[in-house]
């Protein structure tokens, strides 16, 4: 991730920023911004702003990334709409990472399994290191 994006995420979403994200591919920063923005929408504009979930990113040894979430607010605070929005948001983000080129962000990437680590790349960037 470039330094401009690092500065953006650290200032806009300090609650979910983790230094590990500095290794996050440049082509996925729009996905990440959409993901955090969608998580933030769990907050109502008219009530006190809270951190509804913790977010944890895992990159497997062979390459792929996954986002994990854990609920942070009381059980009774979750409406059906909230939980549906949350699960969809994470699923869409995880799915997006598996179809978006890590280099340019075009949504027609697919896995390049070798050499390790695996990468999601479009046709144009298929042979990039």
């Amino acid at each position, binding site marked *: 991730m470039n330094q401009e994006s690092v500065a953006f995420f650290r200032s806009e979403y300090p609650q979910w920023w983790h230094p590990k994200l500095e290794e996050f591919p440049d082509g996925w920063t729009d996905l990440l911004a959409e993901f955090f923005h969608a998580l933030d929408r769990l907050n109502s504009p008219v009530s006190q702003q809270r951190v509804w979930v913790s977010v*944890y990113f895992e990159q497997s040894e062979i390459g792929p990334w996954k986002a*994990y979430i854990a*609920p942070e607010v009381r059980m009774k605070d979750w409406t*059906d709409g909230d939980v549906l929005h949350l699960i969809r948001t994470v699923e869409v983000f995880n799915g997006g990472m598996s179809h978006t080129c890590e280099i340019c962000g075009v949504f027609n990437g697919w896995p390049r399994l070798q050499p390790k680590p695996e990468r999601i790349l479009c046709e144009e960037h298929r042979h990039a290191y």
Partner: protein
Amino acid sequence: MNKNDFRIDVKNDPHIARWQREYPHLFGDWIRFLPPGWYDLIDRLFVEIEAIDPRDPSRFCGSVSLSIKWYPGSAEASVSPHSMTDSWSPEQCQALIQALRRFAMDTEQTCQVCGNPAVGVLKYQDHRYQEVLCQHHMDERRMSE
């Protein structure tokens, strides 16, 4: 207590052998860092998640991946939903979130050594991490100090 002190004999522990067999899609290496007193809570969490959307036995993956992190005095269960959850109902999503939340709260109230109800958190004066303990293990720890 050092985090590594929870390391157990993975090959011979009966819980772990069963979890590897019954819940290979939910089980993870994170188990090494969780105290055995919370194993029944982990077992219940596996059962609850599996009941939401039972895994197709012909596939390795389930609807979600699970990770549990240990913190001094509690644990937090996180999930990573896969594409199969795009057809989940609000009730299924609610069941998942409630199961994760309940697990986290229950670890704060369950002895991390034996699984009995906890009476409090023992904070050490040295480098050791605090522990959630029942009366018996609280007394035992204090006696040995």
